């Protein structure tokens, strides 16, 4: 079960395009209209507002500028499609009656734009367990006086709370802690990466020992005329077939013990 967040980053604006057609013609036969919902946190509850109906074969784009006024300041806007309307309030993220595909997963376009340019990727946001971890090796930093680099750590959990955790930023080569930042569950946590002294040969490591998150790396020129976004794979993607979770556990155990605070 996946939601589609509307992203945010400094001096640019998020947008999300939902599609009501499956990504292939052979895994499922889906021709139903679906309810579009906006889910957000308020007063330690999940609230879901219906934004309309998306007919089969249609697409619709939602912009942060139109959605943010509908939710409390700073909360994460989560869009979803469901064949049945969602409960207006719930203590857990609402269950979606949403068609599932895996080759590929049913996705939306998640993007950031400015007056001059735009960047996007095809994605979805899974619900993370309340206890998880993050280890991301991130060779995405771009360098230049007019360039800025950020990591957007996006987390959603079933429970409508903002639990705090600590993200640590290391250099993979010497495993020296370069800094740490507080992050929260059910948020888009924005960390500028230009402040840690990385050079072009450094491999940054972003680590969190007790919270999972989707790590999105966003670079832009300071005038927002050019931008790029991409996420790192989970460590299990360095292998294929067999016990991929075992491989991920091996890497995480090794690096979490080596990365000294």
């Amino acid at each position, binding site marked *: 079960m996946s939601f589609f967040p509307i992203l945010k980053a400094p001096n640019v604006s998020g947008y999300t395009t939902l599609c009501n057609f499956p990504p292939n013609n052979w*895994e499922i036969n889906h021709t139903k209209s679906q309810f579009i919902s906006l889910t957000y946190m308020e007063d330690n509850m999940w609230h879901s507002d219906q934004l309309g109906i998306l007919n089969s074969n249609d697409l619709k784009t939602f912009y942060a500028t139109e959605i943010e006024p509908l939710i409390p300041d700073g909360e994460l806007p989560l869009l979803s499609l469901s064949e049945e309307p969602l409960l207006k309030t719930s203590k857990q993220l609402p269950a979606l009656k949403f068609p599932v595909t895996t080759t590929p997963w049913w996705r939306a376009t998640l993007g950031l734009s400015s007056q001059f340019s735009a960047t996007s990727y095809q994605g979805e946001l899974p619900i993370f367990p309340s206890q998880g971890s993050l280890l991301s*090796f991130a*060779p995405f930093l771009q360098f230049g006086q007019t360039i800025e680099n950020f990591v957007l750590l996006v987390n959603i959990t079933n429970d409508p709370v903002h639990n705090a955790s600590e993200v640590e930023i290391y250099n993979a080569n010497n495993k020296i802690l370069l800094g740490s930042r507080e992050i929260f569950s059910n948020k888009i946590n924005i960390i500028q990466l230009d402040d840690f002294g990385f050079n072009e040969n450094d491999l940054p490591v972003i680590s969190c020992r007790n919270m999972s998150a989707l790590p999105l790396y966003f670079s832009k020129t300071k005038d927002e005329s050019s931008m790029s976004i991409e996420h790192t794979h989970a460590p299990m993607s360095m292998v294929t077939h067999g016990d991929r979770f075992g491989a991920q556990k091996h890497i995480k155990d090794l690096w979490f013990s080596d990365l000294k605070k």
Partner: protein
Amino acid sequence: MKKIVQRIYKARWTYRQSLTKKPKNVSTKISDLFVWRSSSKWETFFELVDIASLFENKTMPRNYVDIVFFNSNGETILQRKIELIKNRRQVINISNLLSKVGHIEKYGEVGAFAIFHSNIPKIIPKLSSFIAERGYVSYKYKDNLLCSYVHGNLDAISMCENNINTVGGRGFLTRKYNLQYELKGGSVYELGIVNSSNKNMLVECEFTPINGGPIVTKLESINSKGVKVFSIGVDPKHSYRAIMSSKLIMTRPLVFRINEDYFDVFHG
């Protein structure tokens, strides 16, 4: 009865038709087939990381990778060994490597490449797994200050004792891949498709209008390990969807969006 019919229907698409084939030899290395573009407008880079060293913290002999380049027809045009630097970032200028063999004159401006790691950490065969390179490619367009990054996402090709084979699956029936993306007006879109199967594939790309404009259909034959680019310039008043049809299990395109002042690259 309904369930039996459903299972038979599904089996037409799934029986002996996996997305990727599992290698038999444990020393096999896997890679995506990444797209290179190299011309007066495009440059391609690869973010090389020593994957094996991420699994083992002891001092190891220097590892290396074999980078194998293919032209758009899937023919091998270049193979290079590159030494890896443990726990560091190495940006490989793919366009520079290709320029040494005069790629534009001989091989055109687009093709594929694969990266095979020499060292397999001991833990990986114990887990019945294979080391896989699905890393990060960046593209630079004209004089843009930024590169646009995109990750690999498919087990496409394998190397075992210098034998290179595709591992992408193919089906019995033609199947559709519906790109869940709106091709908005005012941009040129170039969709790169790689053939990761071991047979020549016919691929049709239908650009279907959402908001005005004619249907545009393009058909290409793509050799094994080859690449073809399907392009459309979308009028500012119109928008489109893209639907790929072929016998590949997943005809997922790499999408290049090109505007007058900026560009973006992402996977379908």
